């Protein structure tokens, strides 16, 4: 993947040194600058140095920020991780909550409205949601700030104030990012729950006179949640890659915007760095999902045996 990216970037039109060349400079000097970025060397030798550095964990120096890529990513990654985790938790918990409510009475009013709503929300593009939220809550009602992560004077705030400041800035982005996910998880969980609900072993338990609450908690939920975990793993990985559109709308300092800006300004080392980090995060979350699944499985197995 990284190799593919490297060559793709190099063969594309556009020149990163453009930015540093004041047009007053003569072409001779321009090539000098290119030299300093090692852009004039043959492709293969560029690739060699690149791979060598990669092995050392060194992505090189970002052209635009003029500091090591790792440091740039370090300053953007924490936000992305926290932001996606918050959104992830919101997605899962709301999806789960609503699914439980609607499963209690299949085809009841709640079930029907939620199902219809989830389909509609799923069809709402996030940029439409984001822009409308800004319009309603920032421009008309003036309740929340429309962009950024914190107020400029947040330095002087106490810890509690800071926390409030952050959450004020994050409410609209979290809603924008999570809305689609809530709908997906809701649908997925609801269908799973319903399926497990009607499985023979559940009927069997019921026939044995077990309490419905007990059955739901100990048997139905674990069984329904299980397949969700691997889905959630993939989703979380993608979230880490950056909730691009949301970050753009709300001007948040996250990986998505970083990557896109890096692509647009032809900052090769930064693009590779970002991609690499996104890939690693995807692998980690998938691994975590597998581990959790294995753990849960045992418990389910045990539960049934008992």
């Amino acid at each position: 993947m990284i190799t593919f990216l490297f060559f793709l970037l190099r063969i594309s039109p556009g020149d990163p040194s453009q930015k540093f060349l004041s047009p007053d400079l003569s072409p001779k000097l321009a090539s000098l600058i290119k030299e300093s970025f090692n852009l004039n060397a043959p492709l293969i030798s560029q690739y060699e140095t690149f791979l060598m550095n990669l092995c050392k964990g060194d992505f090189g120096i970002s052209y635009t920020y003029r500091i090591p890529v790792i440091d740039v990513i370090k300053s953007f990654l924490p936000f992305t991780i926290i932001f996606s985790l918050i959104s992830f938790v919101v997605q899962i918990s709301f999806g789960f909550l609503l699914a439980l409510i609607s499963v209690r009475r299949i085809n009841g009013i709640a079930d029907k409205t939620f199902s219809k709503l989830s389909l509609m929300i799923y069809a709402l593009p996030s940029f439409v949601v984001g822009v409308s939220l800004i319009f309603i809550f920032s421009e008309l009602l003036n309740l929340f700030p429309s962009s950024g992560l914190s107020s400029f004077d947040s330095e002087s705030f106490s810890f509690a104030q800071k926390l409030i400041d952050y959450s004020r800035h994050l409410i609209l982005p979290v809603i924008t990012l999570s809305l689609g996910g809530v709908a997906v998880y809701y649908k997925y969980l609801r269908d799973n729950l319903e399926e497990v609900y009607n499985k023979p072993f559940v009927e069997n338990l019921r026939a044995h006179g077990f309490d419905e609450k007990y059955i739901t908690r100990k048997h139905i939920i674990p069984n329904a949640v299980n397949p969700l975990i691997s889905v959630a793993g993939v989703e979380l990985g993608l979230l880490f890659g950056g909730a691009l559109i949301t970050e753009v709308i709300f001007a948040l300092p996250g990986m998505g915007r970083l990557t896109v800006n890096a692509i647009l300004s032809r900052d090769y080392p930064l693009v590779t760095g970002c991609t690499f980090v996104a890939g690693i995060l995807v692998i980690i979350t998938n691994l975590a999902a597998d581990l959790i699944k294995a753990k849960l499985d045992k418990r389910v197995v045990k539960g049934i045996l008992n």
Partner: protein
Amino acid sequence: MRSNRLFFLILIFSLLLIPACQKESPVNNDRVVTAIPSDIESVNPLFAFDLNEGNISELLYASLVEHGWNYQKGDMDTFPMLAKSWQWSKDSSSITLNLRDDVKWSDGQQFTANDVVFSFDLYSDPLIQSKLYGSFKNFYVDSSQHIDLKKTFTITNPYLLTINFKKNSTPSFYDIDFPIIPEHVYKNVSRKDFVTAEKEIKPVTNGAFYLAAWNKNQSIILKADTKSFLYKPGNVSEIIFKIVPDYNSRITQLKRGEIDLVQDVKADDFPILKKDENIDLVALKGREYDYVGWNNIDPDVYKKSKKIVPNKLFGNPLVRKALTYAINRNEILNEFLDNHGDLAWGPISPIFKSALDTTLSPLPYDVEKAKELLASAGWKDVDQSGVLKKNGQEFSFTLYIPAGNPRRDFVSTVIKNDLQAIGIKVNIEKLEPEVFFQKMYGRELNAWMAGWTIPIPIDLKPFWYSDFSEAPLNVECYKNKTVDALLNKIETTKSESQKNILYKEVQEQIYKDEPVTFLYWVDKIIAYNKKIQNLNVSPLGPFNRAWLWSVK
């Protein structure tokens, strides 16, 4: 269980709502907050490539002299700064500067002439690639444009410095007006790794402000240095550059009083903001013009063989004039810029009153005249297909614009329609800015739209000289021997009034040839809260001498 869950839900919602009820924190009284669209990359004046970086670095670091705009003259005045006084030699080939002895760097070290010499050294060092690298034309430099320090500087004592300029050059104050950086801080940094190593060093400044905090992608906070020679009690104590990428949020926050100064306000918002009693608006006559570039030569032939062949479509001045006649520039000016601008007809901004040739005026919007000119150049709609043809070739071309610039989008759309009405097929293609500028500077484009900000002092040579190696900005490949001769003459002329006469002659030549379609000069609209006093918006930007501000 049901009530449990209900309680839980209420809890969540109330948690979500609490922050909404919180009041904004009280605003510090003598602080000014301004918004910039993106974070800067460096506060070091060596690398202050973009406008805001320049503004910030000039607030942090003092220069030898400073400039202010003189509206009567339409030119700049020079004031003392780090240099208390100065003396030009009789033939103005050298200047002796009397430096202030009361300036301290923010780490307590004394500022001396050594800092000045060191700054010239760094700015011109090819290893550092500063923003001024290559611009020291009036100095003794070696083959790599590095200033020859021995030949150039004579330090009589730590506060008396003489600068010797190159023989037969025409030096001015602009050659020595840039922020000075501390020698003791950067002396031992290896020049080779300077670009990265410099990032690790905390800025040590000597200007009116010091860098109090820089929160990446959030804000840059400058605080007034009370010990600075530029400081007066009662002046603004803090200037904050808040990063707000979204334009609409900048305007909303300005209205709410969260931000005190916004630059580059869209003309659409002018009337709305005008109604706000807390906000003052300034529409600054600009020195930025937009133009449609018509490549005077054939770009494909030039790329292949470096040969100069007139462009098939735009090689003829009649055609270029016709295109200008056909574009309704007044409509653009009225509807997109809300009349905050002036029609342009040449490369010298109306702000340079003495250099402007007032006998010329912009070509009007005249479709019939355009058709006539095109017909006289051989372009006619022979088969009534709605498209002009000449020798079987259709008049159609692609107009390139850089992506992500609403003004370019708007104007190019109008141009496309206007030209279609006289039978010219236009296809608009947006390119990523990086790609666009690479192609434009490579002279590969046939037709494009861009803008130039013309420098203070006026410098026409890079734009219109016909030897491309000396005129990297002559991307439309304009060639006119008379203009070349005039430009060369300007370079060696010292008298300002003589120069102005020559400038006028250049304008007449360019007016005659219409190498590009000059569209309009754009006013720069700046909106600020009325609480800021002494804010002087000049062509040098709102932050020129910002330390004189006070807050009501």
